[in-house]
């Protein structure tokens, strides 16, 4: 795909994409440090290498759309517009966090941005996406629902049930499979009898395609086209984005299941390297532009860390609040 075919790709927009990816990368790298320093605890799943997917897809969404992701969702939350401060405070378990510090890394929510998590059960968010789309349909709302999930989730029964329900009821859902070829330590071919993932959508007569998830432009272009289709036909679609997780599955993972060489190879194809090279080659980005963006991202991260460090903890007295809604009409 050449830039000429992409009406949206002017310099300004390219820099937005780059900036968003850099923000995520800087955020994730800082999280890894904070984890080593025991400031972030529990499970931490980083998005390094997959940034182009959240950033690319999110370009076509409006405030009316609902977004759902997995436990590996910092990138999606950032790209959806949650403030870095509220996310970082959440990771540090502070009451200023987007969930008052209750959710942590795997459960970022922001109802005002229609960002419905952050789900730590593989496949668990898919039925919710179907329901959010159903609510739109029944209310004749303008929104669609987009859910992101790993290729590992496709083995779960909930994937199958959700795809069928969305297709059967003609609901505006975009299913985005982030195929990073591993589910924890299980390689795709060890978990799926059919590794060509787009063929699976045929079981639901759902349109499907695959895109290079390392190429933010390709992702954005595909998502734009598909989302426009979903909006106009009010029917769901499936998008596989092929990518790679450049870090461990979580911070506990010794990565016995893949070689360093394999990781290094993919690093060279990472979405930041490839996009930066391309923009420089096209003459729309200078090294200084890049360094400025990177520095800005890092500064934003440092501000978020400071904010989070200074933020208060939730009061223990509030432990039982919101188990049930406080005000019943």
């Amino acid at each position, binding site marked *: 795909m050449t830039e000429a075919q992409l009406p949206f790709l002017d310099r300004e927009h390219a820099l937005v994409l780059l900036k968003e990816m850099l923000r995520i990368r800087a955020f994730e790298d800082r999280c890894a440090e904070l984890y080593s320093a025991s400031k972030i605890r529990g499970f931490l799943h980083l998005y390094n290498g997959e940034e182009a997917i959240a950033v690319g897809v999110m370009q076509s969404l409006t405030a009316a759309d*609902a977004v759902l992701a997995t436990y590996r969702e910092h990138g999606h939350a950032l790209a959806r517009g949650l403030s870095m401060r509220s996310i970082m405070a959440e990771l540090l378990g502070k009451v200023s*966090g*987007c*969930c*008052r*510090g*209750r*959710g942590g890394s795997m*459960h970022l*929510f*922001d*109802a005002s941005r229609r960002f*419905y*998590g952050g*789900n730590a*059960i593989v496949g*668990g968010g*898919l*039925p*919710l*996406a*179907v*329901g*959010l*789309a*159903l*609510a*739109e349909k*029944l*209310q004749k709302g303008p929104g669609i*629902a987009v859910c992101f999930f790993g290729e590992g989730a496709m083995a779960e*029964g*909930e994937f199958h*049930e*959700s795809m*069928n*329900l969305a297709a*059967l*009821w003609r609901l505006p859902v975009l299913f985005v499979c982030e195929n990073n070829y591993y589910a924890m330590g299980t390689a795709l071919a060890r978990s799926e009898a059919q590794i060509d993932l787009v063929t699976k959508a045929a079981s639901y007569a759902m349109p499907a395609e695959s895109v290079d998830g390392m190429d933010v432009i390709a992702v954005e272009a595909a998502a734009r086209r598909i989302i426009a289709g979903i909006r106009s036909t009010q029917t769901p679609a499936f998008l596989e984005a092929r990518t790679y997780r450049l870090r461990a599955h979580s911070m506990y993972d010794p990565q016995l299941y893949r070689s360093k060489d394999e990781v290094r190879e993919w690093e060279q194809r990472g979405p930041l390297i490839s996009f930066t090279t391309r923009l420089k080659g096209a003459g729309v980005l200078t090294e200084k532009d890049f360094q400025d963006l990177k520095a800005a991202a890092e500064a934003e991260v440092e501000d978020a860390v400071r904010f989070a460090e200074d933020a208060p903890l939730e009061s223990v007295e509030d432990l039982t*609040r*919101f*188990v*049930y*809604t*406080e*005000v*019943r*009409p």
Partner: protein
Amino acid sequence: MSGELGVGMTTYRDAARQGLRAALLADPRVFLMGEDVGKYGGCFAVSKGLLQEFGEERIRDTPLSESAFVGAGIGAALGGMRPIVEIMTVNFSLLALDQILNNAATLSHMSGGQCSVPLVIRMATGAGRQVAAQHSHSLEGWYSHIPGLRILAPATIDDVAGMLAPALKCPDPVLIFEHMGLYNLEGPLTAAADHVDIDHAAIRRPGRDVTLITYGASLYKCLEAATILAQQNIEAEVIDLRTLRPLDDATFVESVKRTHRAVIVDEGWRSAGLAAEIGMRLVEQAFYDLDAPVQRVCTEEVPIPYAQHMEQAALPSVERIVAAVAGLLPHGR
């Protein structure tokens, strides 16, 4: 909803339908979905006619996909609707338990109060119809273990008609368990159905000598036992819990402080079930008022057998209730 439930003689089944109809009429955000709720008319004929009246958008037949359509109910609730999801029977709800526990019950607290889930899930429960082990579970008490859920068990015609409206008004996920054995129950639907209180237990029969604590279809076994006991000059108070979570312990603790004796009757299995919880609340809150150990009459701890005599032997019976009371009051009054 006041005035929207017609009054007069009816059945538990029709009362349940009237509750659904009133809810659908009252609020355009309400819709019903589940297996065979539409064309088939509901596997217990509860939703018969609703498809014709409200159309396919609001009365939605689902595929056999319990996890997805329960999860879709949660999503639709997040999205501003007021879904009523029917799981045909509690037996199939196990397939949706991840959605119920990890999403419906959890999202509000975990999101710091941002995302409430105003969802109602109805399901039929209970044994006694010779449908054998996989179709005879009574798991409502088991569900009452889960924080974040509200659990209702309508035992009467007014309750089955009237609990739905306040359940739908409640911003929390509410599970309503209708007992399969009650659908043919006949009786009057009264104006009280328009103002059902889903927070409190009800004293269905006052008494001074012993408190029978129960819910669901076992209510009728307790009332029958109370009648028999009255002939022996033992006056049993019968409490219908109605809401299994949050449990209205104040009502039964107060009662037992008066009667000093309690028998809990629960169609669920005995171990680590609701009956144990009620007993422990009494121990914790009324220990020094108890004249005798609290007794439990529960279902035997077996998968429910098909053969009628075996099934009946497994379930709580009027005789076992009377015998449990007799054990507490060996010399009558």
